[in-house]
């Protein structure tokens, strides 16, 4: 299904009666209103003139210092000077693509990849090559092969974009061994890796793995972060950590785009992260999301048809499910919307039409009872489609009359 048809169809998921498992929404209803009120009260009393003013393009010193601290929580040591604050993680993707890609340049990413990155890559006319993922994330052997194949043609990727931890949309995590190899490859071939890590702190089980940035030390890895999933998506604060030459271009690009990220929300977030309470809030979210993930997995086991498969992500916000091959999840979505539930069809995560029988399901934005009901309805429409297909193909007559080219006597 094409993007415009998809966009039109997705318009309906915004209706309140639709259970939307389509978004990537954090549950902001869990944020304590008194903590919000305290920040706003402080701003009112002490910072009104400042937060109503422009700020530096690279971001406020306060926020950049807090970003250093937040990254420390994932064992990364950085210099605040290397940080550029962006208007959400999406702008970070946009700016890094804008700065690094000229039309026709090769860009490598996961298959499937973050559906929101594809329009960005295509708008800068990148030649996007997607590398298959398995349960351990991007297949680095295939990546190596692709780099070699490109080199044979005198080409080299401008960068490799990946969400290595709790990938969007696949939910998979790149294994430690592959992380090491990816960083080595980047060094060997002098190719930049853009590590997008919105979900790293949202781990529900298993052992924490080092980020690509910490393995590499920031030489060939550019890091994209965001407060969207650990504080608020509405504040629109993300960031890029990059070496100086790239940072300078990013800042120029950002100045051209929007001059600066909102000073009001930077002030809010900066002061919020100064207090250690932010860790408690992340812990709360981890507890809530873990339960929701489990509810979704449980419901899928109960309601999804035979032949469907899915993964159990150790963290993040998404489960990637694949239906039997005869189901096109774009069509399934049409039926599902009729039953008041929505998801993201898999083709949106590929540039080449793959993923037609897969779907991305979000479990963070919806409460458990709605998740279960939503999954039940998706299972019901999928079963209906499969039953109908079965009926049509098990009929004797579907051993259709021989086509003229297959038979001397022609069709009957």
């Amino acid at each position, binding site marked *: *299904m*094409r*993007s*415009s*048809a998809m*966009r*039109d*169809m*997705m*318009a*309906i998921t915004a*209706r309140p*009666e639709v259970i939307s498992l389509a978004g990537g929404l954090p549950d902001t209803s869990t944020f304590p209103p008194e903590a919000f009120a305290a920040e706003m009260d402080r701003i009112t009393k002490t910072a009104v003139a400042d937060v109503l003013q422009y700020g530096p393009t690279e971001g406020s010193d306060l926020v950049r210092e807090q970003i250093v601290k937040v990254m420390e929580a994932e064992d990364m040591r950085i210099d605040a000077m290397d940080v550029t604050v962006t208007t959400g993680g999406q702008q970070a993707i946009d700016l890094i693509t804008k700065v690094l890609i000229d039309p026709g340049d090769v860009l490598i990413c996961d298959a499937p990849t973050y559906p929101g990155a594809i329009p960005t890559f295509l708008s800068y006319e990148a030649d996007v090559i997607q590398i298959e993922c398995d349960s351990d994330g991007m297949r680095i052997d295939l990546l190596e092969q692709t780099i070699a194949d490109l080199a044979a043609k005198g080409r080299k990727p401008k960068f490799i974009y990946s969400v290595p931890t709790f990938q969007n949309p696949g939910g998979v995590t790149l294994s430690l061994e592959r992380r090491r190899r990816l960083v080595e490859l980047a060094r060997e071939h002098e190719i930049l890796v853009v590590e997008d890590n919105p979900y790293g702190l949202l781990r529900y089980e298993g052992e924490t793995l080092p980020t690509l940035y910490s393995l590499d030390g920031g030489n060939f890895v550019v890091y994209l972060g965001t407060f969207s999933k650990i504080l608020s998506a509405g504040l629109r604060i993300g960031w890029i950590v990059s070496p100086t030459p790239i940072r300078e271009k990013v800042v120029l690009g950002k100045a051209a785009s929007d001059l600066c990220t909102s000073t009001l929300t930077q002030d809010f977030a900066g002061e919020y992260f100064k207090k250690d309470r932010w860790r408690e809030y992340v812990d709360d979210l981890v507890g809530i999301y873990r339960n929701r993930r489990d509810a979704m997995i449980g419901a899928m086991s109960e309601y999804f048809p035979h032949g469907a498969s899915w993964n159990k992500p150790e963290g993040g916000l998404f489960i990637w499910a694949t239906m039997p091959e*005869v*189901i*096109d999840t774009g*069509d*399934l979505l*049409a*039926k599902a*919307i009729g039953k008041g539930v929505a998801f993201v069809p898999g083709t949106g995560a590929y540039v080449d039409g793959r993923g037609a029988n897969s779907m991305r399901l979000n479990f963070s934005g919806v409460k458990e009872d709605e998740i279960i009901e939503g999954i039940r309805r998706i299972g019901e429409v999928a079963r209906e*489609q499969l*039953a*109908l*297909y079965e*009926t*049509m*193909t098990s*009929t*004797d*007559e*579907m051993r*259709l*009359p021989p*086509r003229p080219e297959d038979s001397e006597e022609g*069709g*009957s």
Partner: protein
Amino acid sequence: MKVALLQGGRSLERGVSLRSGARVAEALGRLGHEVDVLDLGPDLVNRLEADRPDVAFIALHGTEGEDGTIQALLQLLGIPHTGSGEAACSRCMDKSLAKHILRASGLPTPDWVTYSEAAIRDFGAASSFHRAVDGVGLPLVAKPVSGGSSLGVKVVTRAEDIPTALITALSYDRRALLETWVSGRELAVSILGDQVLPIVEAIPTDNNAYDFEARYEIGGANFVCPAELSEEQADEVNRVALGAYEAMGCSGFARVDLILGDEGPQILEINAIPGLTETSLLPQAAEAAGIEFEQMIAQMLDLAE
């Protein structure tokens, strides 16, 4: 005038409706009308009763808006509305019924077979697929009986692909058509009041003859208006289109989509509420006739009954 602009709703074509609506709202405002924008929901009737608009402008597409549901409701409430009435809308929305009416009126439309989900599920209708193939030939087009966009439309070149194509089509409606694929030039004739507007031709930009969806993408087709046709061809296309408009009982405006093949024009469908977005065909046709968007909206409002 106090105008209630009805838009949105739960149809799969909600997105198009919101884009049409936004553009219409602007035009209505500039025309000096008091506009009340209503997104379809459970409070619709109460809001209409409370507001008592002089007229309702229907900028809805797909089920509910285009199938007569809203038109019937407005008639009951005594509120005049733009476009066709309940009966014409429901005829246009049901492509199978529309084709029967066209045939009965002596108007050309490609051969077709209709399958309901129930017939396949409960009565073993799949055993008759070979008859359908014999009747309509290959390639054929599988499409949902209702719906005006490209959603759920697939071209079938091999009989064994009918089941997957029907699964797709039946995802959008309980009934689907298998219709003869007619190759030819794609034309759209818009009718506004008593005026047949210049014919629009959609010329696919690349080799996507069997890809309907591609044409709905920006850049998927080039639109030429007025279409380059001989006077004879244009007259015949207009005659057939106007005949379809009348056979359906449309009023106010509508758009008739046809294919001009070797055997003359063949009617594919009649849209009772064609799109009114920037890229839609009816506004393009009106513009080619020297009717600006605002003026067109004003006319539609005048024709409301």
